C-alpha cells in the first residue's frame, strides 16, 4: 500500500486516510458500484464514490466538504460497498476515519449532531458500566439530542416484556475498561499532534 502513495501530497486528507487506515482513494476508478448498492445513498449529501472523488482531487475546499459531510454519519457500516467494490477499497473503514477525524476537528455536520451524541452516550455507557446499559443509554441519548419523546412510547411495553432493565449490569473490572478508554484517548491526542 505504501508503495502506491510515494508521490502523494503528505498533507492531503487522502494521505492521512491512507496512513491511518491503509485505505487508498487512488485505488478507486469511479465506477460508482458503491453508490449503486448503498442503502443510504438517497440520504447522503455525497455518495461514497463522490466522497472518494473529492478525496482524489484534493482541491482546495473539497477536503473540507468531505469533513463536513453528512454521509459518513448516515453510513450504516453494512459493508455492501466494500464487499462488491471491484478495486477492494475499504469504504466503511474510510467512513470510520472520516467520522473520527471530523469529530476531532470539530467539523461535524450540524445535521449529524445527534449521531455524534448517540455515539458519545453509548461510549459513556461502556466506559462507566463496562456494558451497554440500554435504558440509561437511550435516556441519555434522548436527553442529549432532545429527542426524548420519540421512543418513550415504546418503553413501557418493552419493560413489561422484560426487555428493559432499570439497573445496569456492572462488570467487575471497570477500572480496566476506563484504562482502555484513557489510553486510547491519549494515543489519539498523541497521533493528532
Amino acid at each position: 500500500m505504501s508503495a502506491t502513495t510515494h508521490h502523494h501530497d503528505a498533507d492531503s486528507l487522502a494521505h492521512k486516510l491512507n496512513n491511518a487506515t491503509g485505505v487508498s482513494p487512488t485505488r478507486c476508478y469511479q465506477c460508482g458500484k458503491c453508490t449503486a448498492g448503498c442503502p443510504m445513498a438517497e440520504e447522503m449529501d455525497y455518495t461514497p464514490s463522490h466522497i472518494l472523488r473529492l478525496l482524489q482531487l484534493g482541491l482546495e475546499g473539497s477536503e473540507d466538504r468531505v469533513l463536513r459531510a453528512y454521509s459518513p454519519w448516515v453510513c450504516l457500516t453494512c459493508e455492501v460497498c466494500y464487499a462488491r467494490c471491484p478495486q477492494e477499497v475499504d469504504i466503511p473503514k474510510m467512513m470510520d476515519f472520516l467520522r473520527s477525524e471530523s469529530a476531532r476537528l470539530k467539523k461535524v455536520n450540524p445535521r449529524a449532531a445527534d449521531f455524534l451524541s448517540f455515539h458519545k452516550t453509548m461510549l459513556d455507557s461502556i466506559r462507566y458500566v463496562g456494558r451497554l446499559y440500554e435504558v440509561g443509554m437511550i435516556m441519555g441519548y434522548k436527553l442529549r439530542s432532545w429527542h426524548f419523546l420519540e421512543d418513550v412510547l415504546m418503553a413501557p411495553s418493552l419493560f413489561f416484556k422484560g426487555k428493559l432493565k432499570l439497573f445496569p449490569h456492572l462488570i467487575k473490572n471497570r477500572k480496566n475498561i476506563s484504562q482502555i478508554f484513557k489510553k486510547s484517548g491519549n494515543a489519539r491526542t498523541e497521533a493528532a499532534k
Partner: protein
Amino acid sequence: MSRIGVFVCHCGENISATVDCAGVAEAMSRVPGVVHSVDYKYMCSDPGQTMIKDAIKEKKLDGVVVSACSPHMHEPTFRRACAEAGLNPYLCEMANIREHCSWVHEKSEATTLKAIDLVHKMVEKVKKNQPLYSIKVPVTKTALVLGGGIAGIQAALDIANAGHKVVMVERSPSIGGHMSQLSETFPTLDCSQCILTPRMVEVAQHPNITLYTYSELESMDGFIGNFKVRIRKKARCVDEKLCTGCGLCTTKCPTKKIPSEFNEGLGMRSAIYVPFPQAVPNKPVIDKTQCTFFLKGKCKVCEKVCPTKAIRYDQEDEIIEVDIGAIVLATGFNVLGAEHFPEYGYGRYRDVIQGLQFERIASASGPTSGAIRRPSDGTEPETIVFIACAGSRDEAKGIPYCSKICCMYTAKHAMLYKHKVHHGKAYVFYMDIRAGGKMYEEFVRRAIEEDDVKYIRGRVSRIYEEDGKLIVKGADTLLGHQAIEIRADMVVLASAAVANDGAEELAQKLHVSYDPYHFFAEAHPKLRPVETNTAGIFLAGACQAPRDIPETVSQASGAASKVAALFSQSELTREPVIAVVNRIAPPLYSTCTGCALCVPACPYQAIEMEEIKNRDGVVVKRAAKINPGLCQGCGTCVALCRVKAIDLQGFSNEQVFAELMAL
C-alpha cells in the same frame, strides 16, 4: 601464440574526443599475441572494413578485436567483414569504448586507461575464442494448428495456401469457434456466419489441410522444425467415412432435451448431434454422457435408422502421431462463468444472460430465429439493460484487465435490440467506452445518436427480481453520483473474456509460458507478438489476450507468415551461442556427473539425460545433453553445473575468466 589484430575506431570524434585512440592502439600493440594494432577514423566505413579484411589476410590474424561502439550496434557488421576475409566470424569481438567509455566520461587519462582495459580484456577473451559454426536444424514442413476458430482457420488457410501441409486439431465436434455463434459483427453489422462458413468449408476441402475435429493434443516432444505430436481423436461413435450427414439419427434420437452448447444453453440438442446446421464436418457425434445406450445399455435407435450403418458404439479413441515443424496456438477464449456474478443473480434469474447468449438470441439461426425474446417466458423485453465490464476490470473478481471486445459488442447488442424492438428502451451501464479501432467510435456514436441507446456511466451493484421485473440498481456518476434504479425485463452481462479451460495444462504440454490469467505469453510484447518463448510455436487470436475478429485475423496471418518463413528453407540456421556438455576421452567420457540438477533449471527444457555407451554398446554413464535446437544460450545451467561440465559457446568459462583476469 595468437595472432590478434586490434582496430581502434575514432567514430569521427565520438571516441577520439575523450579517448586517446592512437595511445590505445599503441598500448595494444605491446600486448603479447597482438600482431597488428591500428586506429582509424571510421572502422565501420567501407575503407575501415577493408582495412580489417586486408589485415586478416596479410597478417594471418586468428583473432580480431574491434574497439568501437556497442556490439549491439556493429557486431554483425564486423563479424561479417571477418567472415568475408576468411576468418571465422566468432573469432571477432568488439570492445565497447564508445557507449561505455568515451560518451560517459570526460577527456582524461583515466578515460583512456579505462579504454585500454576494455580493449585489453577483449584481446584476452579473443585468445580463448573458438571458431563456431551456425547451427543447422532440418525442418519438417508441416504445421500444426491447434484450434479451429477464426484464428486457427485463418492461420491454416494462409499456411496451406503458401503450399505447406497443415494439421488442424479442434476440440469440439465442429470447427468455427465462437465466431460461428455470433449474430452480426461490429462495426459493419455483417452476418458472422455468412463470412465465416465459406472459410470453414475451404478448410475442410483444402488439399493441404488435414482436419481432426473432436480431437485434442495429447503430448508434444521435440523442438523447432522437429516436433513430434500425438493427437487424441476422441471416439465419435460414428464412422465418418460412411456417414453422409443426412441427420436422420439426430431427428430420431429420443434424448432431445440436452442444453445445446452452441446455443449457450438456450436451445436443446439430442444425444447424437451435430452442433449446428453449418457444422464442418457435418457429421454427428454421440455424447456418451447423455446417450441412453451408454447410460442404460439399450436404445440403439440411431443405429437402426442410419441408412449407411455408420454408427459405431464400440469406437475407441485413436492416437495419431505426426511430425510437425511449427505450431500455431489458436485455442481461443471463454467467458466468465455464472458463479462470479451472485450480485447480479446470473444463474438464478433466467432473464439475466451473458453476451454470447444474447448473440444466439439475436442470431437468425438461433433458438428464437433472431427475435429478441426473454428466456423465461418468451416475451419481448420492453426494457433491456446491458452491463459492460461484468467481471472485467474487477480486481476483486481476479480480473483486473480490460476484456477489450465488450464495449463494441455491447454497442452492437444494444443496436441490434433497437433495430428489432423499435419501441424498446435499451440502457448500457459502462465505466469507459473503449472504441479504438477503425470505424469503432463512429459505431458507438451511431448507437447513441441514431438508435437512442441510453448510456449510463456507472456500475451496477445489484439485480433482484420484483413482480416479474428485474430491478437493476446502478449509479450514474455523471449525475452527481446518484444511485439509480431501472426496472428491466432482461439484462445482458458483457462477461469478461477469460482464458480457455485447460489453457494452463496445454501451455505446460507445449512448454509455452502464460500470464497470471493463463493467457499464453508472447515472446516480446511489442516486437515479437506472435511468437512464444519456445522457438517454432506461434500465437494467434484470443488465446493470447482478448481480441476482436479483425485483430485475430491479422495476428493469425502474422503467425502464418512466420510459419511460412520458417518453412521457406529446408534447414534453419541459428546462432551457435548455446550451452554444450563436454564429451571427453574414456574413462570419463564427460566430466558430467549425471546429477541431472541442471534439467529442472533450464528455462527451455533443453536438457535431457543421455546414456553414454562405450564401443561395445555398453552403457557406461548417464550424462546431460543439451538439445541445440531448444537451447537459447542463457547459460543458467553453466553457472549451476558444479563440475563445469557445461560450457557456453561464445561466453565460455575460459573466455570470461580470461577477461576477468585481464583487469
